[in-house]
Each structure stands twice: as C-alpha cells, then as structure tokens.
C-alpha cells in the first residue's frame, strides 16, 4: 500500500472520529511525542550493577568481564575477526528458514482449513512429526545434508512450520458462521468467500503465529549452529565457552538478544499494519 493512500485514509478516519460525538476518545498516537524511556530504566540499572560488580571485583573477570572489556571484544571481533560474516550467516539461515517454513505452512494450513479431507490426510503424520523436536531431527539431517546451512535451514523451517500451520488452520476454522451466511446472502463465489471473508478473518491468528515463529527461529539458530557447523553466532558462542573467552561470549549474547528484540518489534509493527482494521487495546 502506498504511503499517500495511507495518509489519506488516516486523515479521513481522523475526520470521521472528530465528527462523531459518541467517539470522543480518538485512538492515540497523534502528533510528535518524546520517545518513551520507561523501557530503558531496567537495562540501565543492570548495566550499572554489572559495572559495579566488575569494578569492586565481586565476580572473577574470567566469569564476568567489565562492560568496557566486552565492548572492546566486540570491536576486535568486528575488525580483526569475522563477526559480521558470522552474523550474516545466522541471519541468512533464519531468513530462509522462516520464509520457506511459513510459506509452506500458510499454503498447507489454508488447504487444510478449507478442506476436512486435506486435514484428515495430513493430520496424523503432522501431529507425530510435530512432537519430534527440531533439534532431535538435526543429527539425522546433518548425516544427509552435511553440516552446512541447508541442514539448519530445514530443521528451523520445520520448527517455524508447525505453529504457523496450526494457527492458520484454526484461524480459518474459527471464522464466524454469521460471516459465511452473509457471504451467501451476497452471492459470493467460493473464491470470493475465501479471499474477502475467510482469509482476512483468519489473519489475526496467522499474524500472531508468524511473530511467534520468527522469534522461535532466531532462538533455534543459535542452538543449531552450536550443535553443528563452523560459522554463525551460535558457533561463536560455543567456541567462546570452550576457550573461556567470556567477553566474546557476552558479545554474542547481547547481539542475539538485540536482534531477537528487533525481529519481534518489526513483526509486531507488521502485525499492527496488516490488522489496522482491528480495534486494539492500547493499555
């Protein structure tokens, strides 16, 4: 959707809410606001405690290096080693796994949601596979595909697949009967019914699962890389543990946390955008 049409729409809605006395409380987010700093208080406290603990040597630096040491290690890893390369390797695996896993899940989830036959066909098999954790698949898949990216992509895609598949299926099954009846009254064809009614109605449930799956994929890449392969943040973390490079270990942990945070936030924004028709609870 283009930016212009979006602003026009927003303006119209704003106008609508202004005209409407019953709707005095327009949804928030108007004008420029100072960024909310509440969320930064706790990280700041942790940082201060961390620094204090390091300064007064409460904990042996081998186990907890000072924040500044970690920053130096970060710089060293970035310039002298190939942190960026490892970072991109992890991102690449997660990105591919998420796209393949969720695309397959959406396709099959929609098919199973629309047809009991399809659901019955896949049901027992999927329910069994689902209960074997992705990580338990890894050894076998590594035997087949080697320790490179494809094995990890496959295993993570599997973990992405199930939450999205199940939520898509459930989202479609939960479409209100009233809406189906309305579609009948309006003489919509099956395809129109799917496109205009069923898929949009299932979208909230689908978006929630995509957001969850993206976070899950990112968490799993660390484990998968730790278990096999010679690159990626997960590999670096386990190598750092082996070599007792606690500063490097912490660098990787912080990066993983921040990227996970960024992934979740962007998925949340995507969700908000797709579901802007939904009356949200803003807290």
């Amino acid at each position: 959707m283009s930016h212009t049409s979006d602003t026009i729409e927003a303006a119209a809605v704003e106008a609508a809410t202004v005209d409407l006395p019953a709707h005095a409380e327009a949804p928030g987010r108007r004008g420029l606001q100072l960024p909310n700093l509440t969320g930064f208080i706790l990280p700041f406290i942790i940082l201060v405690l961390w620094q204090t603990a390091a300064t007064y040597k409460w904990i042996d630096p081998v186990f907890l290096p000072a924040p500044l040491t970690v920053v130096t290690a970060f710089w060293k890893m970035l310039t002298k080693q190939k942190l960026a390369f490892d970072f991109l390797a992890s991102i690449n695996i997660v990105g591919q796994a998420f796209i393949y896993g969720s695309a397959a899940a959406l396709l099959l989830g929609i098919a199973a949601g629309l047809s009991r036959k399809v659901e019955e066909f896949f049901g027992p098999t999927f329910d069994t596979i689902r209960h074997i954790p992705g990580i338990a698949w890894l050894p076998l898949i590594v035997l087949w595909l080697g320790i490179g990216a494809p094995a990890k992509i496959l295993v993570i895609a599997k973990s992405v697949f199930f939450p999205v598949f199940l939520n898509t299926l459930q989202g479609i099954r939960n479409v209100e009967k009233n809406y189906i009846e309305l579609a009948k009254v309006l003489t919509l064809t099956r395809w129109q019914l799917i496109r205009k009614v069923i898929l949009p109605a299932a979208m909230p449930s689908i978006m929630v699962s995509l957001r969850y799956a993206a976070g899950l994929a990112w968490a799993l890449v660390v484990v998968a890389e730790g278990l096999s392969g010679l690159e990626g943040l997960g590999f670096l973390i386990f190598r750092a543990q082996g070599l007792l490079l606690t500063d490097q270990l912490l660098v990787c942990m912080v990066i993983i946390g921040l990227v996970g945070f960024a992934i979740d936030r962007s998925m949340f924004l995507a969700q908000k955008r797709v579901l802007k028709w939904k009356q949200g609870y803003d807290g």
Partner: protein
Amino acid sequence: MATPGHLTIRNVSKTYSLPGRPLVNVLSRVNLDVEPGAFVTIVGPSGCGKSTLLRLIIGLDDDYKGEIELNDKRIVGTALSRGIVFQDHRLLPWLTLEQNIGLSLENSGWTRAEKDLAVREHIALVGLSGFEKAYPHELSGGMAQRAAIARGLASRPEILLLDEPLGALDALTRIHLQDEIQRIWEVEGVTMILVTHDVEEAVFLSNKVVVMAAKPGSIVETLDIDLPFPRDRADPAFVALKRRILTAMGEDGGKTATRAA
C-alpha cells in the same frame, strides 16, 4: 430504480426434527401476500417463527413445504434481488464502509463506475457521507446499522428484509432510525418486510402488520394501517392500533400487552 417485488407466500410450513423429540412445527400453513412497494411488518412472540420465515424468503434455508414466489417466480437460494439487514450489523471489520457496501455488488455484473456510483449514492442515502473510509469499529451502533441498510439496498433489490434491525440499539437511536427507514422506504420505493418485537415500530412504519403466534408458528391476524405518513406516535388512532395489535398478540403475549400498553 429498483422494481418493487411482489412476494407471495402460499401454504408454507416448516418443521424441525431433533433426535428423540417430537417434530416441532416452526411454521404452519403461512399465507401472505406482499404488494409491490408495500411495507409489511411481522410481529409476534419469540419462537413464533418470524425470523425463520425471513430466512426462507432470503433463501438461506430451502427445506420447507409450500411456495414462496417473488414476482411469480419461485425463489431458489440467495439472490441479489433479495436484500437483508440482520440484527447485528454484520459489517466485515476488515473492510471500510465503502468496501463493505461494495461487497454486495461483487456479482452484480455492473461496471466499475456503476458500482462506485451505487456505493456513493447509498452511503449518502443513509446519511454517512464522509465516513467512506471508516472501519466498522469506528462507527457507532446506529451508524453501523445504517451502513448495513445501505449494503442491503445497494444492489437495488426488489425486496428488502429487515430482521429486527433496530433491536440492539438504544431507544433514542431507534426512534431516529425508524424515521430514517420510513424516509428510505419512500425514497427507494422498494418492498420491505420487517420483523420486530416492537409494536410501536410496526405501526409507525407499515402499511400492513402481520401478527404471528407460536406453537405452531402461524399468522393469527393481519391489520392494514391506513394512517398517513409521517405518523404521530401520540395520535389516538395510532395508539388504538397499537392496542389492537397487542390484543391480537394476546394469548402468548398477554402480560407483555398490558405492561407495554
């Protein structure tokens, strides 16, 4: 302009069977003739089958005995020549107001321009101009119900069915929308059938009021309302008609009648 439909209901009966229970007669030998352009209201206690009758006319349920004809053609399934407004506005929350109304024109066979025009005209008809891009959650209950009326009329049906469309609204909004429905009916000239619990609403809007009773669901009385429009709710003739209808609802609605009157 829509050609108002002539609806004929002949000997319509419908039974529900639940396992292990005797058959329930929801409708028993219902006969009703609705003149083109008329406004007919069906009143009756809960369970008298008035909403079931609307479901049969709109074509959501084909399992009945007897005949229902629109302009001498037996109705089969749903069609754009028959519109309906439900008690819940049933606007799709992910579509804007104009998209919701446009949805009823998907299979109208009209050109893009004709559809746009019909959407615009009907939004104006129900007084919602300026809200074209609003989502349903941004509309009040009364506005949403107006939108539903616009959607019901957009495809220019021959007949519009109203299934307790004002039942969920507060008293003031309801009175206001009764005026609106009256005006819209006169402007559009479409045949309308309203189902309601509200006897005053029935007398205010209709040419003809049909009183139904339950067990089995059947028509017990039909009254012509000849008062000129717009009607005055405090007019003695109006009040007298109200009382007659309440009396006709008597056997099952006796207590309601004395209380409401």
